[in-house]
């Protein structure tokens, strides 16, 4: 039966994370931004609360909670500070990929490093994008079977947690003759010989996220490092990316909500022509429309997550719709926030310029708007998913993963 109410466990988790976000993250957003990281004690605290490992399967030490709960958590964290979703550590996009592509043994081997009591400082990363396209369809980074495992060679760009990751999932070309269908995924330890990260990059928003390019020069990993993805690697890869995208969409909702709240409050206080500016229809209607954007996006994310949790074969189109809607909501709310704050929106004394930047960057942190539209259209038109058009590759709109 249709219900928009949280159950007791969800409510408890949401309340706790909200409190954490309000008390521990929000008051220090500028400090976090300047330091480009969170204090270790805070990272430890989040780890203790299990905030970064909610959806890791129980056998790997996680809580095995569904995507609905994970989305509730991500939204609240992002409402506190979107960059904290990255700076609090954890395995990041790697979790989604390992969950979808790995077998039970790999779940345990890889993910338990992050759920362990001493796992607070460990980061995971997904090395996917590349800075320039390959000559033929597929990736420039290759993985070659050596008889004793795999040899990985290539350069990856825009890697979230690049350079600080304990484990990478590297996506590489295994069979060059098969183009985008010839990819493979491999777990690579951060300290493996040949892994060399570039310097940390300065980004538009999400300042505390650690983003760097990473080179893999003749990196050798054992046979067991390959994440096979069951019978359908391409499908599993899309699911992994979709899962990560949905969590990112929940962050968009959190940013949108915060931007909406700050805007409403500002418009209620700021006076012009003798009354609060919110009492002018041109202003109030914009704020009202942003509420419609935020809530519409939230319900879309919840529904996609709930469907995923209850279905054996989640519809990627619905996930893509939710992601596109959430991204649009964040962009609009960020933009309206700056616009209605006027000059105050442009200066750093107010938080909205940061939200505006974070919103812009969040929408390129998982899947491009371009790819999301394609996923929906292909599903609606009854066409098989075309990896070439959907993967966040260098050909069109690369993203940070």
């Amino acid at each position, binding site marked *: *039966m249709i219900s928009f*109410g949280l159950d007791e466990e969800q409510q408890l988790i949401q309340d706790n994370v909200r409190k954490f976000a309000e008390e521990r993250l929000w008051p220090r957003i500028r400090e976090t931004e300047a330091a480009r990281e969170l204090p270790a004690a805070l990272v430890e605290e989040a780890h203790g609360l299990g905030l970064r490992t909610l959806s890791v399967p129980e056998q790997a030490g996680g809580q095995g909670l569904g995507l609905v709960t994970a989305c509730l958590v991500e939204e609240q964290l992002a409402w506190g500070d979107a960059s904290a979703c990255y700076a609090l550590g954890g395995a990041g996009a790697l979790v989604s990929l390992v969950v979808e592509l790995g077998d039970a043994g790999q779940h345990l081997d890889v993910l338990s490093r992050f759920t362990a009591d001493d796992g607070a400082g460990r980061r995971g990363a997904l090395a996917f994008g590349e800075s320039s396209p390959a000559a033929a369809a597929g990736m420039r980074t290759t993985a070659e079977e050596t008889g004793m495992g795999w040899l990985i060679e290539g350069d990856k760009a825009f890697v979230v947690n690049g350079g600080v990751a304990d484990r990478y999932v590297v996506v590489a070309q295994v069979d060059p003759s098969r183009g985008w269908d010839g990819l493979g995924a491999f777990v690579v330890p951060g300290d493996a010989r040949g892994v060399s990260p570039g310097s940390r990059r300065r980004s538009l928003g999400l300042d505390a996220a650690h983003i760097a390019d990473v080179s893999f020069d003749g990196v050798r990993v054992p046979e067991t490092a390959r994440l096979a993805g069951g019978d359908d690697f391409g499908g599993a890869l899309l699911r992994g990316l979709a899962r990560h995208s949905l969590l990112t969409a929940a962050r968009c909702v959190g940013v949108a909500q915060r931007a909406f709240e700050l805007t409403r409050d500002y418009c209620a206080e700021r006076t012009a022509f003798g009354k609060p500016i*919110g009492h002018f229809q041109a202003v109030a209607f914009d*704020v009202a429309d942003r*509420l419609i954007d935020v809530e519409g996006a939230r*319900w*879309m994310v919840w529904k996609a997550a709930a469907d995923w949790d209850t279905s054996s074969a989640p519809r990627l189109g619905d996930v893509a719709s939710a992601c596109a809607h959430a991204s649009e909501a964040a962009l609009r709310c960020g933009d309206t926030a700056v616009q209605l704050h006027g000059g105050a929106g442009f200066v750093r004394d107010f938080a909205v310029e940061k939200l505006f930047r974070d919103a812009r960057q969040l929408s390129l942190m998982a899947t491009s708007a371009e790819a999301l539209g394609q996923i929906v259209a292909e599903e609606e038109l009854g066409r098989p998913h075309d990896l070439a058009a959907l993967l966040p590759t260098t050909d069109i709109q690369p993203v940070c993963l």
Partner: protein
Amino acid sequence: MGIDFTLSDRQRTLRDLVRTFAASIVRPISLQADRDKQVPEDLLLKIQMMGASMASMGGVRAELGGDDGGEAPTDKKPKSTNRTVMIAAEEMGWGDASVLLSLPGPGLGGPPVRSHGTAEQKKRFFSIFDDPTQLRWGSYGLTEPGAGSDVAAIQTTCRRDGDSWVLNGTKCYITNGARASWVVIFATVDPSLGRAGHRAFVVEQGTPGFSVGKIEDKLGLRASQTVELVLEDCRVPADNLLGGDERYAERAKAGFMAAMQTFDSTRPMVGIIAVGIGRAAYEHARDFVRDRYILTRPVPRYRVIADRLAQMKRRLDAARLLCWRAAWMADLGIPNSREASMAKAAGAQAAVSACTEAIDIVGAHGLFEDGEHALLCKWFRDIKVFDIFEGTGQIQRIVISKRLFEGLRGF
């Protein structure tokens, strides 16, 4: 309860039933009804009989404000009528919104009678709908030539005279007004009192001084009856003052409240009907692209269309959820004026743009009333009013704004 978006078994059955009915019975007569400017009575009777036979599972009639046809509320389980109505109304909107608006039953007149009428009034005015072999309508008369969005400005007057009230004025754009057995008419004892002067009456067909004026010719929803009602020294028994004298003694603005509270339940419904029409247009455009576009053509040309389809779909999906959310709140008894307006605003907006885009996608084909895309042309005409009636898009935003900013004056 937990976050949940699955339909109950009964809702799924209802949805499938209404969807099949809409596709196989309603759609085929849709264009002719539009040209004839009326829905065949035998079809309405068929729907009514069907509704009566499935009253136990949330009848179709309930969605226009009839008596609770959903699962009965119990102490443990909140009622689900409003949510169930969302499911059925979307499918009927997808079939033909004019048919939906023409369905017999109390219509918009239902909510004010149910929430503000005395027990005696409820019995008297609802009992006429008991016989499923008879077509009977109720209606709602609020809008006037000089008072649309500004409800407080109504000029229709009412004056107490002994055991009755004497009403004078003109109501316009009244759905099913000419065939309604009774109409809830809003009037004022003194226009200078504003909202506090409002009174709601149930005026019965045949009352001397109560007549039908102009029958409107419209852009869309042509098969739905929209009329002007004229009250000239129309004498209404005091028993027909909705809620009785006591109600107004207790609450000065009871009349205005009766007018406004109607919208808390009907706005999400109007929003979801719009989503149904928008979905129809979207599916039409999608199928056109699927069947007519050469999908092997170079990707860049195809991407633009794909993006437009994706955007149409997700805006409708988001609007549907906003409607469901408002309905869920109504079922749980949570005040939902703000959410009802959000639902209505979003549904209308998403659907208007879906219909506009759909015409754009099929191109010139979509401009002709006699071609294979005639329905799309009709939906484009039909949808516009969804951003106008039951409160324009601007009024919805005022309702939302009033709940965001305290103390709005002269807004």
